[in-house]
């Protein structure tokens, strides 16, 4: 429609809608430029990058899951499990094996979700809700619901995962974000698997008739989400230097869902917008930072966040839906 040469009013509106998340981000940046002192300093920019890392990591998995028409609300609990397993194993098995074991254990959670959604055809939300409750319980059990402070021989290398700065400026999170986004973008946009994911989300019946195995696709998507959530948990626990089964990743699933929705991925599936999710995550984090740097109380931030989420999703919803 937009390639027809002439631009009508409807086209302009469609274009605006298409880029509405970007426009919102720019507006928020400009607003901050005016009202927030010291906003455009290098430190602030890196600060935003470091703090968005977990939202983007969980958001990448969530984008894949939501574009199949499902949802994964267990990511926060999986983050806690990964954080506490890797922190606890660090002393005995070393850095890399600890992380690998944590990710593998967390991928079991994804496997259960994928199996139940894909094979047993249970609604994604119930399955991941049960996993959210259960996995959170396991994470609490591992250290008796106490905070585990990371100490010992490998502690410093582990903490580097959350605090290192390459060349003294570029935080390691920036690299992690780029790698995660590129992998997700490549899988969703450039591979057959990615087409399958969106086809299953768009119309499961016709995907079935086209010979796409929904079970395999869904298995992949939920394991993918769990693996990314596990990495997010590792990074988050490395950044604070401690792992807490109670609070690590609490409500992270809601941040991730909000980022995905604000970024323009349709909640009913069939349309994945990887970069939209990145922008959505940045918007969510920008709200927090605006509020912090202007000494606005946290409660106003929540109300403000609520209004922005509703507004952003409202302007880019499908008319036909």
């Amino acid at each position, binding site marked *: 429609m937009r390639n027809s040469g002439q631009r009508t009013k409807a086209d302009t509106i469609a274009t605006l809608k298409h880029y509405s998340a970007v426009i919102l981000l720019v507006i928020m940046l400009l607003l901050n430029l005016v009202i927030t002192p010291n906003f455009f300093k290098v430190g602030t920019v890196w600060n935003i990058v470091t703090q968005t890392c977990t939202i983007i990591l969980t958001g990448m998995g969530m984008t894949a899951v939501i574009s199949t028409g499902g949802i994964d609300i267990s990511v926060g609990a999986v983050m806690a499990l990964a954080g506490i397993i890797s922190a606890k194993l660090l002393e005995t098995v070393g850095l890399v094996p600890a992380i690998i074991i944590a990710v593998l254990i967390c991928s079991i959670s994804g496997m259960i979700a994928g199996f139940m959604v894909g094979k047993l055809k*249970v609604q994604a939300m119930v399955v991941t809700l*049960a996993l*959210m*409750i259960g996995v959170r319980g396991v994470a609490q*059990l591992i250290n008796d619901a106490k905070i585990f402070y990371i100490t010992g021989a490998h502690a410093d290398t582990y903490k580097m995962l959350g605090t290192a700065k390459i060349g003294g400026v570029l935080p390691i999170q920036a690299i992690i974000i780029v790698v995660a986004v590129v992998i997700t973008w490549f899988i969703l946009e450039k591979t057959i698997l990615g087409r399958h994911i969106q086809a299953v989300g768009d119309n499961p019946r016709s995907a079935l008739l086209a010979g796409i195995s929904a079970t395999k696709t869904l298995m992949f998507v939920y394991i993918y989400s769990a693996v990314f959530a596990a990495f997010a948990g590792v990074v988050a626990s490395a950044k604070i230097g401690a792992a807490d089964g109670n609070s690590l990743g609490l409500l992270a699933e809601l941040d991730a869902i909000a980022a995905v929705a604000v970024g323009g991925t349709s909640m*009913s599936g069939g349309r994945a917008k990887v970069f939209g999710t990145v922008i959505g995550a940045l918007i969510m984090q920008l709200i927090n930072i605006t509020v912090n740097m202007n000494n606005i109380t*946290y409660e106003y931030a929540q*109300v403000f966040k609520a209004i922005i989420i*509703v507004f952003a999703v409202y302007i880019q919803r499908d008319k036909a839906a």
Partner: protein
Amino acid sequence: MSKVKKISNWFSSKSAILALLILLVFSSIAFSQRNFFSVPSLMNVGRKAASDGGFLALGMTFVILIGQIDLSVGAVLALSGVLMGMFGNENPLLGILAGLGVGIGCGLVNGFMVAKMRISSWIASLAMMLGVRGIVLLITNQKPVSISNPVLQSLGNASFFGVHILVIMLIVCTLICMYISRNTKFGMSMYAVGGNEEAAKMMGLKVARIKIAAYTWCGFFAALAGILLAGRLYTAQPNAGDTWETTAIAMCALGGVKLSGGEGKFSGTFFGILIIAVINTIFNYAGNLNSWWQNVVMGALVLISIGVQSEVFHMHRSKRKEVQKC
């Protein structure tokens, strides 16, 4: 249909009741010295069922039946309790009306966002949850509001003929919900909208209005839960009901309410509420057991129960469906 199939079908359709019975038998054997299976102890279970999110689950069932979700119930619970504490200490009626009114208002706004603005119910109610919780923290300054009026206190603590008022309220509310869902036009249309929205629209149902009504009921029950909880504890906590929305959804899921909408009964939710209350009580009784096992058991139980209810266990039925679809 063979007899075996018939029996297995009956059991899977009544799996919530079955699970409850198994749990009751198990706990009455395990805690026989402490008289688990006695009237006061069972009353205690009932009271727990009502105060730990039972009403939220009833409200949530309305929303789930139309195929949507409401994450804001926990926050609305806190808001209504706090407002009742603020207005109700001089004039209890005003307090109750303020509490219930704000719940209904939140439900209306949720319904409006979902039905008229066509925002996904996840996002709409998530925003509502953040916003309402923010408002609660703002108006209370993060301090609990004490409930000093005796009328409001008795709202959560009175008992009639030895039966706690919360238990009576829960049963009465369940019966009302069952009546609404079975015998009214609104109840029937909820199932229609949840089952197939397009078809419901073509049948001439006012889908938007039904959605808003379902959300309003959900808000009303969340507010009722808030009022009763605040009355029972003599204070309204600003962080009351935090993460209770997940418990409420789990209660519905355990009760066999299909989370994609259109299938499920309020009686099922009622048994789901009881199951979670019994689990909670078991963990209270087994004092030496690590209480974090509670989450693990609850998660596993929900997984098992939905696995049993899934279509794979009704092969013949799903195959027939498949043929019809093709």
